[in-house]
Every structure is written in C-alpha cells, then in structure tokens.
C-alpha cells in the first residue's frame, strides 16, 4: 500500500511538472501575445491541482487539505484576472498582433470609444441600453 501510494505521488508530481513544461513550450511556440496567454493560464491550473493532490497524499495528513484547497482556489480566482488584465492592455498597445486574427469584433467598439471626446461624463445611447 505504501509503495503504491508513493508511486501515485510520483506520477502526480511528474504530471504536474509536465504541465509547467507545456506552458513553457506554448509560450515559445505560439505566434502572438494573446495566444500565448492561453498557454500561460490553462496548464498551470491543472498542474497545481495535480501537485496538490500528490502533496496531500504524500504528507498523509488531513490538516493540510484546507490549505491546499485554499491555494488552488486562489489560483482559480487570480489566473483569469491576470490573463484578462494583460490581454486587455496588450490589445490596446502594439504588442498584440491584431493582423493575424481571423476576426476581430472588439475593434469597432474600441475605435468608437477612443474617437470620442475625453470628458468625465460618458453618454449611454438608448439603443445600447436595451
């Protein structure tokens, strides 16, 4: 039983590390910044989960499970926010390769907003409220 659990821990830890490797490969091979954000957010969440499960089994203690669950929950909450902030600012600067996109439905809106006069009050037209 002990040996079996140890093997399980080893497999989980290695799989978790493999996810980080995949994220690294993704960062290198994807063509532009926005696509790279996919590699920077998704595999880690799974990698974290696998490493945490491995740790929980390895330590064989119930007391660490809330801490690990908390850390994973925080990862779930923060990874999308950072991806969103980087993507949002990257889109509005030269870093996003917008020409390589197949379609871009945000461009119209951003152009419209940035061509509006900079005042403190933003008018919301009636047809947009519906």
């Amino acid at each position, binding site marked *: 039983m002990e040996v079996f659990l140890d093997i399980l821990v080893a497999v989980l830890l290695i799989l978790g590390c493999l*996810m980080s490797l*995949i*994220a690294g*490969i*993704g960062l290198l*091979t*994807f*063509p532009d910044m*926005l*696509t790279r*954000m*996919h*590699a920077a*957010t*998704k*595999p880690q*969440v*799974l*990698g974290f*989960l696998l490493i945490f499960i491995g740790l929980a089994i390895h330590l064989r203690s119930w*007391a*660490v499970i*809330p*801490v690990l*669950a*908390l850390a994973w929950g925080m990862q*779930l*909450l923060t*990874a*999308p926010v950072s*991806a*969103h902030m980087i*993507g*949002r600012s990257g*889109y509005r600067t030269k870093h996003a390769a917008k020409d*390589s*996109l*197949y*379609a*871009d*439905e*945000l*461009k119209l*809106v*951003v152009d419209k907003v940035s061509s509006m006069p900079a005042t*403190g*009050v*933003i008018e*919301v037209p009636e047809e*947009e*409220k*519906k």
Partner: protein
Amino acid sequence: MPTKNMQPRDQRIDDALDTSGVRHRATLKQEWPLLALLIFVWCALWQDFSPANLIFGVIVSLVIVTLFPLPPVVLSGRINIWYCVQIFIWFIGQVFVASYQVARLAIFRGKKTRSGVIAVPLRTDSDLIVTTVGHVLTLIPGSFVIDVDRSSSTLYLHYINIESKQDMERAREAVRDIERRMIMAIGSHGEFDAIKHECGPNLMRMKGKK
C-alpha cells in the same frame, strides 16, 4: 445625482458611471459569504478549526470588512446545490481538456495557430454571473476574456483555433451554454424561468446528455 431606486441593470450602469467616489456599502446580511470565506482562510492558514480559533477568525474578519469595505455583491437569492456540484465536476473535466488542447496546439501547430476575437452578448443582468462565466471561460478550453461591456453584459473573448465562420458560431454557442449552466446553478428565479422557457421541458435530460 439621480435617486438610487432603480432597476438592477440601470443600477449597474449608474455604478459604472458614478465618478463621485461614493460607493454603496454592503450590509452584513449581504456580506456573510465573504465573512465565511475569510474565517475559512484564517482557520486554514492556522490549520486549526477548533472553536476558539473560529471565534478569533470571526473577530478578525469583522474587523477586516469594517476597515476595508467593498461594494456589495448582489446575490440572486436562489442557489441549486445539485447544479453547482454538476457544474464543478464538469469544470474539473474541462480543465483537463484545456491543458490537453493547449499542449496539442503548442507542440503540433505552434506558429500556425489562428485565433479570433469574438463578442458574445449574454442573457443575464447579474454582475456575479458575468464574472463567474468569465472566470470559467478563461480556465476551460479555447477562450479568455479580453474585455467586458458591463452595461450590455457583453464579453469580448479571445478564442484560440478559429479558422472559419462555423468555428466562431460554435464558440458563441459554447459560451452561451456555460452561461445556461451558471444560471441554472446560481441565477435568479426570473432568469431560470427564461432558460427553462428557452430549452423546453427537456431541460434536465439535455443537461444530462451534454
């Protein structure tokens, strides 16, 4: 300043446009999920869930929410635990699929990967559902949120692996499906009824099959 007795959607637009710096304070009744979370964080970090530590956690979290007030998170007042469990299990499965998809694209496609930015108007009025749908979207295969239009509940997503109009339509359908699951789990009664109306009487069965 207009009176603050408005419909939820107008209230949200008013919040977004409000530059006076005065925020609506949350009441203790609205804030209990945050309090529960803070107590859990406290106890988890001490690795001690004994009554004495719980009481001290309550005191610390009350001090925190009083000193650092947040604007209220408007809950819908309806929650279906069974759908929540279903959506969580489905979500864990999707996290595995997401990593597999990124790995496949990174290794076999690399530089040739095409993607697109799509706009998805959501049905819901609720900030909470827009936020959770955005979070789930970012963690499951294919998409992450670039921008949000709060007044019309529109998400602007970067979608990976988009090469045709059909791909775009499929992506939009997938997002609307996630929103449907979210509304079934935590949406308000009105939105839940609208979803039931849209999907017909076979709501449960459709859910089970997908």
